[in-house]
């Protein structure tokens, strides 16, 4: 009741595409309700703040000191007045609480038949799995417009949090358990997704784009995404890998030779090929390569580094690389290995990527 009355009073200011003074554009079904609550509190605050400031300024002008002597004899208390300003705010906050709570329940209660996406947070990138299509995206998430989408989220390392300001949704992403979030996008477009729980060095770069696309294009887009590498020839794989897979490694492995959390990919294949890698155990990779050894071929070492990185830790680094077991398909691992072999052709001297996914040079 109260809500509908207040709503009709307040909702005459339609948000423009850039949003309002206070809020960004609104692009999900729950945004409307949250903006309404926000506006409601806004007006209550404007009112009380005006009362406070006007009273303060008026009194300071009217009753400013005229002589240093003691002249005042104003009232020392007034129980009726004091009870009024105790009870009136009490009633108001009960209204605000109720409006906020009801909005919150809508925000949390996912409707039936959501399209489900599995989200994994990992320092410092987001991976989105579409089980329905067997497709995986990193750093970008494609969803259909006008359909409820549910994100089932977990973390591989520390706390993260998904926040999409234009959708007004947020939920922490926690290692060792699932949390979830749902939204229904109302407008086609690209939206910013932020990590908003501090997670270390590149917290501020743990971003992703949400692409909201028309429903009739969605299936085709996903199917294409899921299988794009399957029909690729060996020659096409390196360009695919550096454009589509490397973004999962970028937070730790550079392309320009500088070492980060992990060793640079620059020159990696040349080192591995000849076994020029030392491990924290004191062993050298050279003793594990060749006939009748653990690895035999150097490619196997790279494969193991990706699937089971804790097995051998490179000297000078911590064993902080996560396993990509189950996240990369066999053919994608092959693509990564091809990428290592052809890195010179894919990057310039500063480590910038110079080819597009289809093999054409970037401008």
């Amino acid at each position, binding site marked *: 009741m109260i809500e509908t009355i207040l709503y009709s009073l307040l909702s005459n200011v339609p948000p423009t595409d850039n949003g309002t003074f206070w809020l960004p554009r609104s692009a999900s079904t*729950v945004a409307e309700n*949250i903006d309404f*609550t*926000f506006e409601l*509190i806004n007006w*209550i*605050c404007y009112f*009380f703040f005006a009362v*406070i*400031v006007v*009273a*303060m300024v008026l*009194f*300071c002008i009217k*009753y*400013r*000191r005229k002589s240093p*002597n*003691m002249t*005042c004899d*104003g*009232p*020392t*208390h*007034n129980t009726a007045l*004091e009870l009024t300003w*105790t009870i009136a705010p009490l009633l108001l*906050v*009960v209204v605000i*609480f109720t*409006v*906020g*709570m009801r*909005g*919150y329940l*809508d925000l*949390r209660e996912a409707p039936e038949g959501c399209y489900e996406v599995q989200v994994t947070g990992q320092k410092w990138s987001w991976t989105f799995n579409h089980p329905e299509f067997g497709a995986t995206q990193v750093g970008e998430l494609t969803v259909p417009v006008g359909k409820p989408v549910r994100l089932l989220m977990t973390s591989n*390392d*520390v*706390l993260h*949090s998904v*926040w999409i*300001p234009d959708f*007004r949704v*947020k*939920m*922490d992403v*926690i*290692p*060792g358990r699932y949390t979830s979030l749902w939204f229904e996008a109302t407008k086609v477009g690209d939206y*910013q997704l*932020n990590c*908003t729980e*501090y997670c*270390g*060095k590149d*917290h*501020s770069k743990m971003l992703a784009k949400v692409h909201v696309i028309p429903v009739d294009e969605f299936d085709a887009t996903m199917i294409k995404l899921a299988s794009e590498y399957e029909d690729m020839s060996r020659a096409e794989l390196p360009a695919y890998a550096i454009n589509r897979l490397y973004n999962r490694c970028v937070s730790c492995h550079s392309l320009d030779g500088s070492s980060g959390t992990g060793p640079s990919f620059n020159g990696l294949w040349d080192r591995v090929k000849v076994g020029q890698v030392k491990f924290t155990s004191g062993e050298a990779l050279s003793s594990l390569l060749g006939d009748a050894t653990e690895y035999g071929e150097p490619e196997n070492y790279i494969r193991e580094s990706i699937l089971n990185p804790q097995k051998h830790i490179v000297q000078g680094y911590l*064993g*902080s690389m996560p396993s990509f077991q189950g996240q990369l398909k066999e053919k994608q691992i092959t693509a990564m290995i091809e990428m290592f072999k052809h890195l010179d052709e894919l990057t310039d001297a500063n480590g910038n990527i110079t080819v597009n996914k289809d093999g054409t040079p970037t401008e």
Partner: protein
Amino acid sequence: MITTEAKHDNLSMSDNYLNHTKGIKSWLFTLDHKRIGMMYLICILLAFLLGGIFAMLIRFHLLTPDGALMTQDQYNQAFTVHGAVMVFLVIIPAVPAALGNFVLPIMLGAKDVAFPRLNLFSWWLWILGLVFFLISLGTGGVDTGWTFYTPYSIDKASSMGGVIPALIGAFVLGFSSIFTGMNFIVTIHRLRPVGMTWFRMPLFLWGTYATAIIQVLATPVIGITLLLLIVERSFGIGIFDPALGGDPVLYQHFFWFYSHPAVYIMILPAMGIVSELIAVHSHRHIFGYKFIAYSSIAIAMFGFLVWGHHMFTSGQSQLVNIIFSLITFSVSIPSAIKVFNWLATLYKGSISLNTPMLYGLSFIFIFGIGGLTGLYCATLNTDVHLHDSYFIVAHFHYVMMGSALIGFIGGIHHWWPKMTGKMYNEAWGRFACVLVFVGFNVTFFTQFMMGSRGMPRRYATYQPEFQTYHVISTIGSTIMALGFVITAIYLLHSVFKGKKAPRNPWGGRSLEWQCSSPPPWDNFAEQPEVGDCYDFSVLVWNEEEQGYDWRKDAVHPGE
């Protein structure tokens, strides 16, 4: 009666707490609450300078979207050090330990706190805490944020090497705070002289009393939590680490069980100061004494029941969120009562817009915004959007810096003549206060806007659309810094060159204004008389002294 006061004044020329004994040792091992208060004050202001330097680094780094000054790691360290120093070393001890120590016993009419040795020990613990913080900077730094959230803080591969010394530092500082709180509770219960009933106590004492209760009841929880963290990080025992079967969210419960009440450790004594400032500088009996006094206690009590509002998006159950939201709103009521009572005190007052009063009025303005924006954060659905954004950063700076710290600085100006026996330059004081007030609002109001529009907190780099806000915010912080620098200069200047302060420059009625400025070693030559500490009608302006005396014909309480 008049003769007693004359005697006080003669005494003050020769013997006061500043010159009673000499030498550095007579300070470092003093048991005198006034000296301990002054040592706290000096140290806390130095720590404020340290935290402020990091704040300016952060603000200037954020002038450009890619970050102008530091690497990602350096930025993360900068905001961690800024937060930890400001919270643990500055704001929590500022009012109780520095001003409280100096003023509380005198206001009460006591010669000292109940346990002077414990009091000195608290100060030494503060120093030890500072030392551990410095060690942590030297042993790899800390980049966990002042919140030390798990599992980041227990993962040695992620967070930097200085985490353990920083945790020990916070632990030690916690005990410093607990001891101060215990001391004040016992002092207020046991050392009130005849006539000083509970409802004759100045409201500043009610504020510190409520604070002391929180310090004693809540701080042990953070102590235990920090110990658990230390043990877990050192020995890999699985309490908070999910990889070892622990629960990272449990840490947040423990942490906020203390750290939410800690917000009231910061704000309640500052509210107490503001009650004094408003009443004394408008020469007007405080309006609704009992409502203000009880609301302090109410805030302290409710404060224990609302920690979960920091965790609305942490995955805790919806029911729990709803309950925490509801209780959180209840805190807004006693806060509103205080603001309205202060305004009513101004009504028909004789308002002097001098420096302490300007700080008092700034407090009401800023706390108005800080308190009202709390409504957005307590409301469930809006908080989901605002949590961990710059809106929250702005909100807690309005409360912790704009209110608690502004109250503290107002208190420093109010009691400066009493503490140092010198008057500062009033014109510079007002000018600096205006700079701080304007600078503060420019800095943090913009942060509300960028926060609700989508700027996450603790970001070393950001989307270009937020640059305008960040630039304005940095300009504001520069103005504010200028205000603080000017304040430091004229206050220091007054110590050496300031006019001698009269016994009672403002016309205060509580007991500290009855002893000389600075107070004698043992506060009162003879037991002062206690009356209604907000009844200013017994005072009269003395032009010659530039201060207030008892009216000759005033009826003394007890007579």
